[in-house]
């Protein structure tokens, strides 16, 4: 299926991606060719086939919900990665405005 420019904008919006204006036409063409390629899956008869999410048949792997101390050094490294901060607090744009 060929994507329209509007669909490309819509997908970029859902994915929270800013696209440069000159990129949109390139993406429209490349995404369309990928979608057209994977469209061949429609030819496979999967009437009675159960979907497979994983190659291991694991389920409900649980562990106690315990707090583990990561240590002061790791903590400082994590805080050191904040793009913006106030002391040890992470600063972000207002969520509700």
């Amino acid at each position: 299926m060929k994507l329209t420019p509007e669909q490309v904008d819509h997908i970029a919006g859902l994915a929270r991606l800013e696209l440069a204006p000159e990129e949109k036409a390139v993406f429209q063409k490349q995404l369309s060719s990928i979608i057209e390629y994977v469209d061949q899956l429609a030819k496979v008869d999967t009437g009675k086939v159960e979907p497979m999410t994983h190659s291991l048949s694991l389920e409900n792997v649980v562990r106690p919900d315990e707090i583990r101390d990561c240590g002061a050094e790791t903590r400082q490294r994590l805080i050191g990665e904040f793009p913006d901060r106030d002391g040890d607090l992470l600063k972000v744009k207002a969520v509700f405005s």
Partner: protein
Amino acid sequence: MNLNELTIVGLAGGLEKGDWSSRDIARACLDRAQAQRDKTKAYVTLTEEAALAAADASDKRRRENKTLSVLDGIPVAVKDNLMVAGVGATAGSNILKNYVAPYDATVVGRLKAAGAVILGKTNMDEFAMGSSTETSCHGPTRNPWDTDKIPGGSSGGSAAAVAEGSAIAALGSDTGGSIRQPAAMCGVVGLKPTYGRVSRYGLMAMASSLDQVGPFARTVDDAALLLRAIEGKDRLDSTSVDLKPDWQIPSEWQESVRGLKLGLPKEYFVSGMDGDVNSAVRSAVEGLEKLGAEIKEVSLPHADYALAVYYVLMPSEVSANLARFDGMRYGTRVDGPDLVSTYRLSRGRGFGREVRRRIMVGTYALSSGYYDAYYLKAQKVRRLIAQDFDQALSEVDLLVTPTAPTVAWNIGEKFDDPIAMYLSDVYTVCVNVAGLPAVSVPCGFAKGLPIGLQFIGRHFDEKTLLRAARVHEAATGPFKMAYKK
């Protein structure tokens, strides 16, 4: 003798006898890495000081008879999407250009606990998305056999480092062939373990149901040593599993393929493969037959759909996994007037084109109205593909295929043609889709470039996989270094 061109087994023997020190080996690798930096760019970060300190600590342990394992003092390179505490971890992306890993990945912690020396971080396609190591924000890695060619990808830096002698061995990650395909293109051994055998904790997630960490090495024995050091259940990765006794790598190998049944998937030998690759693979198979293996043709009826399944499931998982890179808690933040525009600008400028393409394909496949046609459909075909492998591997012990349909191509050749690039993974992606183990070993050259032979095994049967790979290796002669002065 150049220490940086030896194997783990050879180096460990010399360390034991006192012929050389761990510092000597690390120094030789670091010198080669410096000499090759502008030619191949295998590394993005060389942690020289930390490596020499770790080597000295290993030498001290040895003097005190406190050596930790056969890997003690052996220098290893690590792909840049794996966390090494205190060292940059960019995954080849501008969004993480200044990111420093706060902790060790489980595999890295296990290597350190075994005494291995971490040399640095190797170049890769951005977030492991690519087959040529060209999408890295640091620029491409070049193939040490011919620097006009790509080294394969996405773990191209790790493969190049082992091939050129700037590391003895290396770790990579494999989601659709990212260990095996560059191993083939650079002429080294690359192993993708069974899904669940090795912890993914501290590996930047690309497609969580497909990703697996594994080793690059110069010999199958070396790859097996690394696997044994990193494998096993990890409480920090709920998809890692306890290894049953029957799944363990034996300390003594069976030195023969006599009685082993090897399957050639007939669908793989029809079209799209280079003539040179075809004949190299066929002659390797004939070699194994002469050594007592039984060769049988098998069928994987849904083989033609594996790539399409992969290119729906992988981008879908990518679009979810990479949602965490939003410029908020770490990584590059590009401020906009509000929260959503800050997300969009940070991600739009932080991610390169291939990453954004895959996020968008995945977002589309998961979006309202398309989920059933793409994601759910691909999950169903995934089961059919896995069943094909189950059937084939009930008739034979291993499958033998080329690792990639061609040898390394020119840098830039497929850069703007995603489908052409994706087709280079045609023999590797199905293995991840089914969660099986597979190894690529060198099987000759065409136009001066290495060709890879892939063995695919049953779930957790790395033992048989590596047994056959070892016999092939012994029959085809010693490892060939790519390095030319």
